[in-house]
């Protein structure tokens, strides 16, 4: 069975609190960023995938198997939990060796693998020291080493870059890219957007327990036609530029931003062209033209705001009016869908969950 994560209408609630609502997706080999603000359901989804929790409704399959209390599925999973918690009295080598042995390797093989895994994450000099004395970044790398020591097909990483320095980040991201290139599904949760952008453009956006979007950043971005695109021009003559560009077709708003002018447009390609032409024709001095929307940040906030109109976690759960109409089709990073995928929300007043 090839590496995959499949969720079929998966929901999870704790009492009255809905943590995850009707999530469907299918992930193939590659690196997937699971994005969402704190409390959005990322960790719950990660834990369901790791077999730590059972979905209240629907199901999750890891390589075709339900993971909860299922050795066959669990053998394919590597998990790096979010918490900064380790067995402080043990050395990293002892810890990772023990984890490899619990995955089914003999004592010799387990130790060899543990050493190789710790070396891969740059802990070769510290592997025999007790982990209680490790820095935050070293602890994070020890956790990652145990997650991949048994060559899992599905690697679940909950905020793996928390507390790491730039060098550790580079080491970690490099190792994850190698695992993905070897055919593993790497799901990487974070609420720090640049972390995702540094490693993949395949994202899953989750907000208030719902999957609000899935696909490549630019693909998702292009589907959001109702979300106006921002174009920012840094110039010393913002008023002059604004006066020149006031009649550009597709521009719906214009504002003065620090150091320049910001345009909102539904036709970004035409807007870029027209601005460039006008700048040349009228010899306006500009420093740069950028699009704040190119970063995930803008996209993320936009989608989160959309999802905020729907039912969510917390006390409002159960009285929400929105119904998620997710259309999660099987896709892989190797064979991306040309249009990305957008989990559409229908706001239907009076319609219960």
């Amino acid at each position: 069975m090839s590496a995959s994560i499949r969720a079929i209408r998966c929901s999870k609630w704790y009492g009255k609190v809905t943590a995850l609502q009707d999530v469907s997706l299918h992930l193939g080999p590659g690196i997937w960023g699971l994005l969402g603000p704190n409390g959005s359901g990322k960790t719950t989804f990660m834990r369901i995938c790791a077999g730590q929790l059972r979905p209240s409704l629907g199901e999750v399959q890891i390589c075709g198997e339900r993971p909860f209390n299922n050795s066959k599925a669990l053998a394919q999973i590597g998990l790096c939990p979010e918490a900064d918690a380790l067995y402080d009295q043990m050395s990293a080598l002892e810890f990772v060796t023990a984890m490899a042995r619990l995955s089914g390797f003999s004592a010799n093989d387990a130790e060899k693998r543990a050493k190789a895994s710790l070396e891969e994450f740059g802990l070769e000099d510290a592997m025999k020291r007790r982990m209680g004395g490790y820095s935050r970044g070293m602890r994070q790398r020890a956790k990652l080493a145990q997650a991949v020591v048994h060559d899992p097909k599905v690697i679940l990483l909950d905020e793996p870059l928390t507390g790491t320095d730039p060098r550790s980040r580079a080491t970690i991201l490099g190792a994850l890219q190698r695992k993905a290139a070897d055919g593993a599904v790497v799901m990487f949760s974070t609420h720090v957007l640049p972390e995702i952008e540094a490693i993949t453009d395949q994202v899953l956006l989750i907000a208030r327990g719902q999957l609000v979007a899935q696909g490549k950043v630019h693909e998702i971005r292009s589907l959001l036609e109702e979300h106006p695109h921002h174009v920012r021009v840094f110039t010393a003559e913002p008023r002059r530029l604004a006066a020149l560009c006031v009649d550009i077709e597709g521009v719906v708003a214009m504002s003065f931003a620090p150091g320049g002018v910001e345009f909102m447009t539904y036709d970004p390609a035409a807007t870029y062209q027209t601005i460039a032409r006008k700048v040349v024709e009228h010899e306006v001095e500009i420093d740069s033209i950028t699009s704040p929307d190119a970063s995930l940040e803008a996209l993320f906030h936009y989608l989160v705001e959309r999802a905020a109109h729907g039912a969510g976690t917390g006390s409002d759960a159960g009285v929400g009016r929105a119904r998620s109409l997710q259309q999660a089709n099987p896709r892989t990073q190797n064979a991306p869908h040309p249009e990305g995928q957008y989990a559409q929300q229908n706001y239907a007043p009076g319609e219960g969950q």
Partner: protein
Amino acid sequence: MTPPSLFSATGLLLRLQLTSLWRGRKLRVGMIATGFVVFAVIAARYSSQRDVGAERAVELAREAMVSGFDWGFFRLLVLLLPFLFCASSLSEEIEGRTLPFLTVRPVGRVPLALGKFLAGAICSLGCIWAAGILMHLVGLAASPAALIEVFPDTLRALGAASLLVVCYCAICTMWAVMIPDASGVICALWLAILEFVVSLLPGQFRVISMATHGRSLGGMEVGGWLAEQLPPPEVPAAISAGLIAGMTLLALLVALLVVRGAEYRFSKA
């Protein structure tokens, strides 16, 4: 790569738990508590030593050992050590947030509970047997005849204490996996009320308590409140041993059934 068998997974988790106990504080606390008990019994034994005949000396030594086992072991250590090693064995993993490392491995959760139970039982038994043998050797060193004559009694008391220790470890493990949030309080109440207080009640009430059966098996006098007016029923040794073993198996079975499907407190982290 084949997932480890139940036996080998239990062995691995047992080893992991023993390492944690060995390098942590609990084993040291247990050893210190045991040391205090041994010291107290030996001190009491030598402070009451009088110049009596050889036969009487053996008798006095035997009485000293019986009362040392009764108060130091059956009323204290057999309750304290399982509580210390097993009552919070799972909640520590949950609160320390290390449980996902174990539950994501392809070994199932049964070996997890079994490993923790066995580690607790091994540490408790180690303390009990080391203390018992030490108490016997040092406490009776002054009368070499008693060293040999009283030895079967010591073995009998240690055997009964071992049965009780294993039973209490199973009970503490059961509560640890059933209600990890409050397992410490529940185990403390269970051991204090059902085992300690009930074992002192008059008449037939005390047969509920495993401590009564353990003390009876260990050759201790089954006293308690109003023992003369309402004497406890005579329970054959085989039945007492069977009851303790049955309770142990029942508690373990419940623990293993619960642990298989439990989600624990992951949701709150």
